[in-house]
């Protein structure tokens, strides 16, 4: 079925739960304001089930209710995996056969972001979720620059290592830090290298919207729960061209 609605305990009931704070002291008017917001979000009826004053001028609300919006799963845009998922063996074999040299990957966590666990999960031998990281792939040559790498250093290293692909991680998202840093990074590569010479640009992190690749000037975005194999398979697909 392509049209669905939220499900509380009965098909089609449309029930959802919502919570938020309004910067108003708690009184009946505040509760009305909370319901007004829920109504504007399409909840009708909106049942205000909890209101708690916090400090001087704030109130926290929990609202339950029915939304009338229909969800059309047919209209959903997703970045579907448009390449085959290969095993490490296959990845190595394809690179060896087609590229006839090791494929160079440079990874880093840029800006002031120091969250390396994510990029390490993709790059380090240790890997994640039972899959080994890219360093384990014989035909990949991995340079992991670590955390808080500046964009100029990254560009410089990519150039020096003749990087085929640059993998950047961004975890901190407050004030859209991840978007700003990614844009700065892709701009720097565009400036430093002509189109044909530019490495494939990949960013990843738990809070990215995978649909934003073009907007951010990168080739691909990987989100929550990415595994090394997916990344390796994509590299082969994008750089070496298919597994045949």
């Amino acid at each position, binding site marked *: 079925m392509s049209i669905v609605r939220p*499900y*509380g*305990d*009965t*098909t089609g009931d449309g*029930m959802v*739960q919502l*919570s938020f704070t309004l910067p108003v002291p708690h009184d009946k008017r505040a509760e009305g304001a909370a319901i007004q917001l829920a109504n504007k979000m399409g909840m009708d009826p909106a*049942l*205000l*089930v*909890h209101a*708690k004053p916090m400090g001087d001028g704030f109130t926290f609300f*929990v609202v*339950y209710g029915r939304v009338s919006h229909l969800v059309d799963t047919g209209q959903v845009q997703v970045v579907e995996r448009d390449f085959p998922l290969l095993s490490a063996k296959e990845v190595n074999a394809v690179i060896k056969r087609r590229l006839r040299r090791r494929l160079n990957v440079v990874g880093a966590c840029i800006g002031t972001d120091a969250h390396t666990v994510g990029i390490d999960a993709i790059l380090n031998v240790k890997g994640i979720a039972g899959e080994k990281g890219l360093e384990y792939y014989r035909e990949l040559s991995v340079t992991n620059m670590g955390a808080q790498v500046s964009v100029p250093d990254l560009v410089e290293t990519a150039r020096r290592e003749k990087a085929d692909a640059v993998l950047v991680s961004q975890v901190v998202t407050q004030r859209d830090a991840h978007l700003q840093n990614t844009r700065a990074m892709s701009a720097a590569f565009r400036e430093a290298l002509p189109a044909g010479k530019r490495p494939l640009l990949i960013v990843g992190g738990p809070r990215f919207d995978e649909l934003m690749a073009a907007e951010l000037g990168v080739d691909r975005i990987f989100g929550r729960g990415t595994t090394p194999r997916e990344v390796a398979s994509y590299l082969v697909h994008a750089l070496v061209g298919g597994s045949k």
Partner: protein
Amino acid sequence: MAGKLDLDPRVVREARALAARAGQPVVDLARSHTTVSVERAVLRLAGVRGADQDGIPWVNRLVDAVRADVGLEHGVAVPVFHAMRATGVDDVTVLAQKAAAGAVRFGVPLKKADVTAARRMARKATGDGLRTIDRRRAERERMIKRYGDPAQRPWIYLIVATGDILEDIPQAQAAARAGADVIAVIRSTGQSLLDYVPEGATREGFAGTYATQENFRLMRAALDETSKELGRYVRLTNYASGLCMPEIAALAGLERLDMMLNDSMYGILFRDINPIRTFVDQRFSRQVHARAGIIINTGEDNYLTTADAVEAAHTVTVSQLLNEFFAHEAGLADWQLGLGHAFEINPELPESFRLELAHALLARELFPDAPLKWMPPTKHMTGDVFRGNLLDGFFNLVGALTGQGILLVGMMTEAVVTPWLSDRDIALQNVRYVLTGAGNLHEDFVPAPGGFIQRRAHAVLAEAVDLLKRIEGDTLLNAIADGTFGIMKRPADRGKGLDGVAKHAEDYYNPVTEALES
């Protein structure tokens, strides 16, 4: 587990003896009375099925007809089977239909031989019903042997309550797959005051689904499938309490339900059902449960929703002791006693958690062989669902620390809605976390000798003994009339369903009681 509270065995023995003495007059009452529902249960076991076009079961029409002609006091078995012989009808349901149409007259035969013949026929017919119950019980035992019991204690008990049996079924199966060991189908709000059991598959309950034989059958079949799929026997629970306890108990036995809510006083206190009616009905229904191998769940948790959980803690203990006495008297074994109690102390109260531990442990040590049913917070749950999930976690922890037998899983939306699919999932995840991470913590939980927890448990037990003494002196019926339990005042001569009670005549005959007590 026993021994952490250092309870004085003499005090425990005294409490039990007092409960027996306080309960005995009620047992005597129950043994000397019958009710319309007891008689209908007999006829259901004898094979009456179905309902008229208004949905009134033929069994009701039949009992009403008998009653109109000869009263209830002889029991319906003899008049009915005498009429069978007299009319030559060989199907009791057909007899009921004819009786409803006014085509049959009922009487108690005068000739001894006629009585003996009618009794024999009744015995045979109801014996078929009881044999079906026995078969179901054997079936359960086989399936448990095949699929196995839950790996852990407490068993995880989840509620479904959509009002629609066809929505209930997939939700129950999903809950079982997610980890539930026991599924309870909550009943529609109005049912317990109906003086008949609705018929057929139903889709129109309020905040619960009607308890009907067909709904029982459908759900049990679905859970049998799921048990097979999961390799773990998933138990099914429903509610006996109400005006039709005996009949629902019979239907539960016939459809292999595994547990039934069955409290000796719940109907009186929370549904304003007449005390005599309830005491008669509960005894018969429990005898049927005993035969069916069904575990009962008592309702002490409810007292703490109307009374304060600290002040009234000892009333829970007293009620548990009474429920235990009545249950044993009706033939139930300790393993069938899911005595209820609940995590209902105001969470703002200092030491609330330790008080909960003291109360839960007291129940555990008083009834070491009973699969206690531990009920989650409800009264102090609010619309703050984040806090709600936290309270439920601490409730689960008490369950694990005190070795409760059955854990009714609390829902973060308790104060908001009957549980959503996702509420159950979140709640089960909560239980799983607590049991996995702290399931064995009871080894390290040793209330300090003479400390807060021991002192509290001793105090509650002492208050319970005092209250039992007062009840014994003044009679249980008066205590109920005075609002002793749950602050609900229920005089013995008031309440619903009193007109369905009759005192046994000399020649009262009930083939089912006869079989169950033999």
